[in-house]
């Protein structure tokens, strides 16, 4: 694990009665993309704005490269932000937008010109320097905003849902571009999004937020495969939940009693007999087949949505409805059809049962 480049310690920010950010602790490693992921209103933007310095925290500390900055105004912090709506200056040309931060830093004019040209070329905007940002497409505006932020060579790049104003097709393309740009510059980046797919695909680390708090920090694989709680499991990826009770903890494994019958998972030590917990079944931990076999459960397909490469079936098992993904093979099953379900116990994940 790299050393922390940006450290957030017990950061708290209230708006009236709302705790927009509550006791957030986070270490952001150097040169990576760290993503703040969470539903709308969970405090991502507020956290980002605290780091940028647009308002002071109610409590807590912010350090960048080991130096406390939480008392500094935004002008004095080595951060640069790309706003969700880009906030390009409409009365300045693209060139002047990108040059703005350099001019404020009293960089000599020839140097400004050189660096802006370089930045525009780097982002493929060399032909648009003289244009008004109002006359650019959404994708181009986004790149101007990025160029403006990168031009000042900040220690930390802050991106607030930079892709949310682009249309779906463009979004995936720009996402890849963004990742490549970040990697080629090795820029420490904090990226905010509410889109879990975006977060998983672009990030080196993901911090999942809910109601002002960070619920889990980890690599994309970690938060997907080993969520710490039901919220994270639900927010990141598709999840089926089953209530369960621990019947026995043996050296062979944990025996669980669930609505799908008795299940045996690989050995885990942290559970005790009689404990209630929640089983997380990702769609890919379930398999469908047309014949019964050992351990198969009778099920019925209720509906199917076609997702391109895969199909997602809503399958009725007893009283439960589960989501099961199946790679598309060219044939279509009918709804209502009898089918058999297999649970891959190696891929099943146990969560502490939250009080309902």
């Amino acid at each position, binding site marked *: 694990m790299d050393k922390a480049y940006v450290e957030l310690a017990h950061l708290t920010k209230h*708006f009236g009665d709302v705790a927009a950010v509550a006791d957030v602790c986070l270490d952001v490693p150097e040169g990576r993309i760290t993503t703040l992921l969470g539903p*709308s*209103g969970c405090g991502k*933007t507020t956290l980002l*704005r605290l780091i*940028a*310095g*647009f*308002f*002071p925290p109610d409590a807590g500390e912010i350090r960048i490269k080991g130096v406390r900055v939480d008392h500094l*105004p*935004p*002008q004095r912090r080595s*951060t*640069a*932000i790309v*706003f*969700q*709506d880009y*906030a*390009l*200056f*409409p*009365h300045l040309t693209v060139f002047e937008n990108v040059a*703005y*931060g350099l001019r*404020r*830093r009293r960089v000599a004019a020839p140097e400004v010109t050189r660096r802006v040209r370089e930045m525009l070329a780097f982002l493929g905007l060399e032909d648009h320097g003289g244009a008004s940002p109002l006359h650019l497409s959404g994708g181009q505006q986004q790149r101007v905003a990025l160029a*403006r932020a990168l031009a*000042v060579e900040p220690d930390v790049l802050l991106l607030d849902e930079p892709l949310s104003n682009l249309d779906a097709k463009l979004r995936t393309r720009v996402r890849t571009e963004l990742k490549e740009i970040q990697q080629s510059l090795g820029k420490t980046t904090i990226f905010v999004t509410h889109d879990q797919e975006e977060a998983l695909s672009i990030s080196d680390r993901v911090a999942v937020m809910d109601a002002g708090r960070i619920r889990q920090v980890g690599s994309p694989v970690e938060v997907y495969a080993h969520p710490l709680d039901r919220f994270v499991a639900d927010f990141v990826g598709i999840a089926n939940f089953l209530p369960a009770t621990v019947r026995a903890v043996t050296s062979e494994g944990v025996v669980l009693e669930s609505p799908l019958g008795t299940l045996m998972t690989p050995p885990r030590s942290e559970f005790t007999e009689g404990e209630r917990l929640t089983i997380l079944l990702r769609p890919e931990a379930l398999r469908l087949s047309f014949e019964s076999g050992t351990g198969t459960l009778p099920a019925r397909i209720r509906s199917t949505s076609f997702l391109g490469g895969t199909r997602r079936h809503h399958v009725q098992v007893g009283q439960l409805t589960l989501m099961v993904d199946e790679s598309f093979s060219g044939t279509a099953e009918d709804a209502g059809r009898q089918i058999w379900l297999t649970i891959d116990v190696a891929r099943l994940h146990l969560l502490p049962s939250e009080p309902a």
Partner: protein
Amino acid sequence: MQSESLTQRSVVAHSEWRVRAWFREPVTLTVGLAVGGLLTVFVLLPILQVITYPSIQDYFHLSENSRWVRATSNTFRMVLLSTCTSTVVGFLYAMAISRPDFPGRGFFRLMAVLPLFSPPFTIGFSYLLMFGRFGVITHGLFGLEASILGWWSLWVVQTLSNFPYAALAIERALATTPPTLEAAARDLGGGWLAVFRTITLPLARPAVAGAALLVATYVLADFANPLIIGGDFPLLATEAWYRIDGWGDLRGATLLAATLLPPATLLFIGERYWVSRRTYAVIGGRGSSLDRPPLPGLLQWSLLAFCGLVAGLILSLYFGVVAGAFTRTWGVDWTPTLNQWYVALTKADHIRNSLVFAATAGLFATVLATVAAYLVDQRAFPAGRVLDALCVLPAAVPGVFFGIGYLLVFNRPGVPLAGTALVLILAFTFHNLPFSYQIARAGLAQIHPNMADAAADLGAFRFRILWDVHLRLIFPACVAAWTTAFVNGVTNLSIAVFLVAGGNQVATFSILGLIGDNRLEAASAVTTALLAATLLVVAAAWRFSRGARVIPGVLSG
């Protein structure tokens, strides 16, 4: 939708943060107190002075004063009549000019806008030329020699002068009603009339009510047209002037002016806080650009005839003014001549004064309005609400009232300003402040708070942000604010009559004098010159402001 509401909230929270920061800002405090002080002296003081000039007894005995009773009832009658007709005419006119496909739309629109740039009495004056004792139509056409002065002429003139305000306000409401709403109603089976009755009209109702209140405010406060056309039909505003001009009776004048204040304030509050809150937020997605279906043929032709009549009347009135400027003796000797322009030349000083005073007042008003708007909008000045109220207050005060207030406070012995042009300039400045202030507020409101944050993030400090972001972005609004104040200043008569003295004569006042001396042709020449100069300046300002065009008097609430 959601991001919008979040943005609004973030503005609020930002201001909370700024309130805290504010106490560390001596500049904001000093500027805020200075603006507050100016407003107290130049807005509050004159108003209070007028109200408190008469004794309480005087107020109690008002109902025994037959002239007062007559003026009051006349005033209300005129307000009621003119408001109704102006609004109806304005509505019909708006129905026409709100449709992009209406034949001659540009011309009709221009005819509605023109009166707003001319001195308020231009319509009254040209009416005199057309229908007066030697009027082209009354005398020339019909050989009549009767006097047309009186209440119903005034009614016609007020309707013609004020319907443009209604037309332009209602036009905006009609034009912004999404065509999809009407299309949906038609789709559900409504005929044109049904759609109009159930969709178009109800949606426009708040705008119509707002327009009516606005017109009522103007008719109530109008001074110039009653003076020229009213004849022996005393109104509150004109009576107040006669009291001072003829009798030097300040107490009588203040009583009459003070009577204007409560209704004017009520109308103003109604327009600003009641009707404007009721305009419908249009619920709609994107891409609702849909052509409106054409009007039914008969209706289209009737509207065309109607608008043609109204626009023709206005055009002929203006034509009359210009023609008068080149005529030897109006109604008697039609020989073309340039003689009138020699007279106009002798009044060139007055025209120059008008332009200079109005331009200066416009500058003052714009600067003050911008500073006040910035304090209220961006810096969360603690007394922001008070500042805001003081800035819009003058809009509730009729010009005559304001003029008398300045007369009482500043034009008396011992006050260093007494008798100088500065008194007049300051009166213009503060009377027009609400318009400039609202334009500046609207301009600032369009600057997303992220703009300032982005500049701060890139290293710009306070004054740099103020300069780079706020001032640069509201510059067009400032030009618009200046233009409005300028036009209002040049065309003002109601304040000027009380404050002109010796060397600071203004053109509107000398035109009034020429009309009073029955030198209508010379009055025409001076009016034409003033009008031309004003329009030139406005055109230049419009070029300068890059599209932020504001028409005087027609502001959103």
